């Protein structure tokens, strides 16, 4: 994912595997993560990286686990300040 237009928005912080990252207000979790990392999760059976697909809440391929426990569907969840994710295969795991 590459930021293209309409990116003049306030910054907010989030965490992946304890490391601090900066996203922007209005980002979905998917945008915030994929503009800075290669994937959102690892597939259960073949253990391959996955990074979402449909972006409209249909394919269910972008669920990201949070530190608190529940997973969020990254394409349809807006990033909130301080959100913390656990993503296998990214630095920190």
């Amino acid at each position: 994912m590459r930021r293209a237009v309409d990116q003049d928005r306030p910054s907010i912080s989030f965490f992946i595997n304890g490391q601090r990252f900066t996203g922007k207000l209005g980002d979905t979790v998917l945008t915030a993560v994929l503009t800075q990392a290669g994937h959102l999760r690892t597939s259960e059976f073949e253990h391959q990286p996955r990074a979402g697909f449909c972006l409209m809440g249909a394919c269910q391929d972008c669920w990201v686990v949070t530190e608190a426990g529940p997973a969020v569907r990254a394409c349809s969840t807006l990033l909130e300040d301080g959100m913390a994710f656990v993503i296998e295969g990214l630095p920190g795991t």
Partner: protein
Amino acid sequence: MSGRPSPEIRPVVVGAGPAGIRAAEALVAAGLRPVVLDEGERAGGQIYRQPPAAFSRSRKALYGFEAGKAERLHATFAALRAHIDYRPRTLVWNAVPGELHVMGDAGPATVPFSHLVLATGATDRIYPFKGWTLPGVFSMGGAQIALKAQGCTIGETVALVGTGPLLYLVAYQYTKAGARIAVILDSARFTDQIAGAPAMLRQPATLAKGLYYVAWLKARGIMIVNGAIPMAAEGTERVERLVWRTPAGEGRVACDAIALGYGLRAETQIADLLGCRFSYSAAEHESLPASDATGRTSVAGVYIGGDGAGILGADAAEAAGTRAALALCEDAGLGVDGAATGALEARVGRWRGFRAGIRRAFPEPVAADFALADDVILCRCEEITVGALRAACREDGVDELNRLKALTRIGMGRCQGRMCGPAARALLAHHSGRSPGDVGRLRGQAPIKPMPLAPMPLVFDEAKP
């Protein structure tokens, strides 16, 4: 309006896209106060999706030629807000006669209905190919949403793969947003597009827009390959290259993202759970809830409008949404203007003719066209290969989709076959020697989308054997 709404009329609209908003508008005009349930953060559906509030682009920048329609629809919805019970971020996860089971901000709830308008829209129609699960491969609609709702492109150098007018629109929008288009790979042949032109003349303005995009792209030297079948998205951690084949030979191009889509497929699960009769449309290559020109389904009190009833596009969806709501009003004993309903049906009919042209210009690829190797993943949720489908046909004589699901798990995962269903059906028909209609359809099943197991943790309550 001759009738006065009775308090027993509890209309519910599912979906707040073009069809749902127009349906809600007609219900409010009839004196009703519908519940409007929508999964989205903001109303508008996919095509007129509104970015989160923090974004500031103009409607012109967001919706291009469609900015006027988007503005009118959003304005209509804004004016309706005080007259409807609007519940955004709300998933309808199950439906039984007279009741919808929903999951929203406040947790799980039951929404009773006397009349229901389904305006659930569509998702991309996908055909898999080798490497389609790699990071960097997104659906065509997804590529558009990234730009519209997030101001992002799915990559720096993007290949567009599939068929349909959306390929050219996305290429145009992406180029304007500063992305490089590596290639447009359209499975439709040039001759298909000529064949479809006469019917598309029914909507000359829309046809002209399509031609404009193609001319604009060609003027910029963007590579368009017709009659092409994608062979592989290659790369280790993410997409690095796209390989394709045409009758003339193989082609390849470097890219860091791919958008994939062969038009759209209807979202029909709620109609299915409510027992609506379905029939297979050979033209649309999918099973759709049977509905008449008014939007009435086979189940009394259940109406359907927009792309969820079969793909006709946003303009038709607005008319169909209104028409379905007026059918509801008629059945509820509220007065309805007969001339208005006739005009709406005629409007939808004109789009039906246009749609036939689109289908000829951008035909569904045939399963036999896809030289899918046995190791290509078909079901991306359960990671089941095309080879597993072939083995089930060969060894177990499988010739029906739900049986295929039971034996192979194809379509059994989180997405319930939304992504692999069309291809599974085409491949199963091809390998079992039956028609796509005869291999059946994946039955809808609750929950329509994944539901928390324990949204409100309970203790072990009064269990009875």
